[in-house]
């Protein structure tokens, strides 16, 4: 941090000042154990007030519905409270009142446990996300591995939900979730490995400081890794275009088919929670976290961070509002045939550059040259690999043939091929 940041409690650019002040005050009047209990509570309350409330309810539920409504030529929620802002709360109350049905043939224990298993990791995920230079619950050195490990846990809950419901649609959803997570975890981890190699740290705070240090966000350094991360994470989160696990038009609601009331509400709410966690992670790892080329000394860094998170989340909403859904075999093929080789290529490229940079003792300015080179190389690699796999968009006619007179069969001249 620059010289502008002070330790005064009223310096809201760093909220840890105010919490430290409170804890020190408590320490003076009460036994030291109390401070240990108050500290996490304080952190949780602060986290709730500055992140969960605005993000989960306003952006995740209300914002998503408003923005998609705007894209779909309708208004979205606009009745409860000013601009419909209280709609999420009204929905939550409604869900609490509804009966949470359990089918007769369902495995009750597993079906009831699944939402709980689904909720817990969503909270844990935020423990290692740095909101500011000192605003972090746990700055552990292997935060990146921790994040990947915890974010794989909800798959188990989804599988439990699908299995326990004893419904064929649910089982399909569960199987698809597992198959997809297993496939997409691989390119996801490989794209993040490139980040680790280049910044030579696994601590999320360390990655943010690295980006602030070289004045280049990793999204510019390795656009391919960012893209792979985005696609893989939207597959893991079941967001469109990869929402095959909850594919409404095919398998009704996937593993959520038999869920109702607040049991369903927990899944729904935490889906947004996971998407926000993935956005926060992307903002940290690829978008420079709380740093913004010196602006963080003037604007509270946690605000910058939350803005970046919401920006990333907006892309999720955007794709959901526009894109169709892929089939499961196409998704699998996409992960293994397209994303995985590109992730390996990206890892190779970035490692090579890191080696060049460190071994030859070149100045930090070289990363900008690397970034420019990577952009070109990534685009070229993605395009060439797609062509190699049979991507031929120009061969697919998007307009029908027009004839003037009714007759019989009109044969097609030339070959019109498909391609993945």
């Amino acid at each position, binding site marked *: 941090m620059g010289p502008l940041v002070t330790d005064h409690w009223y310096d809201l650019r760093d909220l840890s000042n105010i919490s430290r002040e409170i804890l020190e005050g408590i320490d003076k009047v009460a036994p030291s154990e109390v401070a240990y209990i108050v500290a996490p509570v304080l952190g949780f309350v602060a986290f709730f007030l500055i992140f969960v409330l605005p993000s989960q309810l306003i952006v995740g539920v209300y914002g998503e519905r408003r923005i998609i409504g705007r894209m779909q030529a309708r208004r979205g929620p606009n009745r409860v409270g000013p601009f419909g802002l209280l709609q999420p709360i009204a929905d939550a109350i409604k869900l609490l009142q509804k009966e949470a049905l359990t089918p007769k043939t369902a495995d009750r224990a597993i079906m009831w446990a699944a939402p709980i298993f689904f909720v817990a990791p969503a909270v844990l995920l935020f423990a290692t996300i740095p909101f500011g230079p000192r605003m972090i619950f746990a700055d552990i050195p292997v935060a990146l591995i921790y994040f990947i490990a915890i974010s794989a846990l909800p798959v188990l809950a989804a599988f439990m939900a699908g299995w326990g419901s004893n419904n064929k649609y649910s089982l399909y959803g569960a199987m698809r979730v597992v198959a997809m997570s297993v496939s997409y975890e691989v390119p996801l981890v490989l794209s993040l490995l490139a980040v680790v190699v280049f910044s030579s740290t696994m601590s999320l705070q360390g990655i943010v400081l690295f980006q602030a240090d070289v004045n280049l966000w990793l999204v510019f350094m390795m656009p391919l890794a960012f893209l792979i991360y985005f696609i893989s994470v939207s597959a893991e989160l079941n967001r469109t275009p990869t929402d095959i696990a909850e594919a409404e038009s095919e398998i*009704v609601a996937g593993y959520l088919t038999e869920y109702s009331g607040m049991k369903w509400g927990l899944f729904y709410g935490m889906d947004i929670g996971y998407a926000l966690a993935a956005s926060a992670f992307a903002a940290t790892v690829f978008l420079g976290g709380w740093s913004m080329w010196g602006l963080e000394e003037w604007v509270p860094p946690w605000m910058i961070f939350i803005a970046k998170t919401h920006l990333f989340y907006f892309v999720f909403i955007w794709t959901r509002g526009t894109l*169709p859904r*892929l089939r*499961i075999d196409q998704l699998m093929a996409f992960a293994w045939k397209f994303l995985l080789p590109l992730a390996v290529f990206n890892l190779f490229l970035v490692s090579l550059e890191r080696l060049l940079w460190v071994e030859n003792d070149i100045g930090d300015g070289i990363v900008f040259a690397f970034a420019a080179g990577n952009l070109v190389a990534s685009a070229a690699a993605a395009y060439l690999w797609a062509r190699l796999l049979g991507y031929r968009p120009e061969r697919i006619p998007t307009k029908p*043939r027009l004839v003037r007179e009714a007759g019989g*069969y009109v044969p097609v001249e030339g070959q019109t091929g498909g391609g993945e």
Partner: protein
Amino acid sequence: MSEIVQSEPFVMNIGPQHPSTHGVFRVKATVDGERIIDAEMVIGYLHRSMEKLAEERTYTQNIPFTDRTDYLSSMSNNLGYCLAVEKLADIEVPERGQAIRVIMAELQRVASHCMGAGAFANDTGAWQTPIMWFMREREKILDIFEMTSGARLTCNYMRIGGVAFDLPESFEEEVRAFIPAMRQTIDDGEGLLSGNEIFIARARNVAVVPHEMAINASLSGPMLRGSGVAWDIRKADPYCGYEQYDFEIPIGYQGDAYDRFIIRIEEMRQSLKIVEQALDGLPGGPHSTEVPLALRPPAGEAYARIESPRGELGYYLVSDEGPSPYRFHIRPPSLINLTVLREMTVGGSIADAIVALGSIDIVVGEIDR
């Protein structure tokens, strides 16, 4: 390692209550994992015995029934039935009545294809957005229908010998204002979907109906044209003076779901072209001929067919000189087009089956009657 994992096929019901069966229609699919190995169509959940009921009512009283068969294109159904009765009783329709019928039928085609293309996009997973865009424009068509006939969905507008009422004063203005907006929406919808890689991957080479199969199965409408067969009753057997309008038949390449989608999009454009031409040359004079209320056509039979949004819609009537038809039969395009669903789905995945069903664009009210 004792033994490998055993798997066995099981039966999965898609419908009758399912988000993408377009009504109460059921596919009893035998699936092996994601692959469908057998599919059985179960219809009849919406059977209302219309053909039998029609034998007890007069010819005019039967018109509202036709509204309720294919409820997404009631104007076309009215038209098909009225043409059959007019053929049976040998009634001439004034030119203005014919032009109005053409305008209404073509607007109905646009409205129906809005629904068809939008619902198909929904089936491929384009979550609600294209369908909402198309629905916005469809609303305008329904407003125009309401202005003209008093009803939005079940218009009951055509009459034996013409149409029920003359056009309202602001009709032409409204339709002329609607056409450019609709063209814009068609372009938008096409821009969002036609070139979209994901959409192409989902719809291309899926649910292929080769042209031999299409002809053998007696398919019609976009299903037949998607397979590359140039066939349109408006061209092949013109009615209501379609021969005087300038329009083209869009045909597809290999008969897959994607071809049917782009054909529906193009047909909307062609329909707007016809509406414009009909408005330009709208003749004056009466909109309908006088027909006795208790019509007793001479004994005989008549079959009239039109190109409804879904294909060849035929009405077959037998008269025994009584006030009501002796036999009233509908040839619903949805039912005939649905017959190839098994061939389209078996061997594909569940997701493909949904796309196949969406690309047929069925209306269950018409299948079950």
